[in-house]
């Protein structure tokens, strides 16, 4: 299916565990982004990638790791999950940054106990 797919949609984990959220897009968009959405904070950028093997930090990168070995995939890893990382995570893609239409995935709701 064309589009941007996130998995899992829901995840419950425990403090200290490693968690990986997957993001896959079928448009060959060069840019991909990870945001977290929390009440009162809106959408906060965690990491973004301009192309395969090029990643950069956003506003709230601490505690997260990303990689982009292929254009279509942009996984987000929480190496040692903390309760403060309980959130809804959105992946997005776009042809370019800046004056660009971002297409968002449906989100991954993560609960860290």
């Amino acid at each position, binding site marked *: 299916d064309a589009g941007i797919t996130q998995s899992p949609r829901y995840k419950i984990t425990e403090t200290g565990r490693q968690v990986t959220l997957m993001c896959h897009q079928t448009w060959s968009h060069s840019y991909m982004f990870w945001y977290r959405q929390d009440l009162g904070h*809106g959408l906060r950028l965690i990491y973004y990638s301009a192309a395969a093997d090029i990643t950069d930090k956003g506003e709230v990168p601490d505690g997260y790791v990303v990689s982009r070995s292929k254009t279509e995939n942009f996984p987000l890893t929480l190496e040692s999950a903390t309760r403060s990382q309980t959130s809804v995570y*959105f992946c997005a893609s776009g042809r370019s940054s*800046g004056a660009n239409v*971002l*297409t968002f995935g*449906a989100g991954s709701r993560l609960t860290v106990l």
Partner: protein
Amino acid sequence: QQQVKQSPQSLIVQKGGISIINCAYENTAFDYFPWYQQFPGKGPALLIAIRPDVSEKKEGRFTISFNKSAKQFSLHIMDSQPGDSATYFCAASGYDKIIFGKGTRLHILP
């Protein structure tokens, strides 16, 4: 500065009324101003966008008004309907950046 300030945080409007959401930005390098609409359980989706060389853009019941000198822009939803109930995010983008406002939760009373 990179902030985009959005207000109000929440808004309740009667069916048929006009919903107005305001945003202000600081960085004059921004050159594209989109609005995203998000329904519960879904990701945000582009609703309407404007470039700073025009003062207004209208698409159906949705209108963006843009004031370049004041660095402000707003979304107007005419004849608001219950189906418009959602969270709305304004954004400002330029080279290598897109900054979102914190969102407005809009509820349209039936």
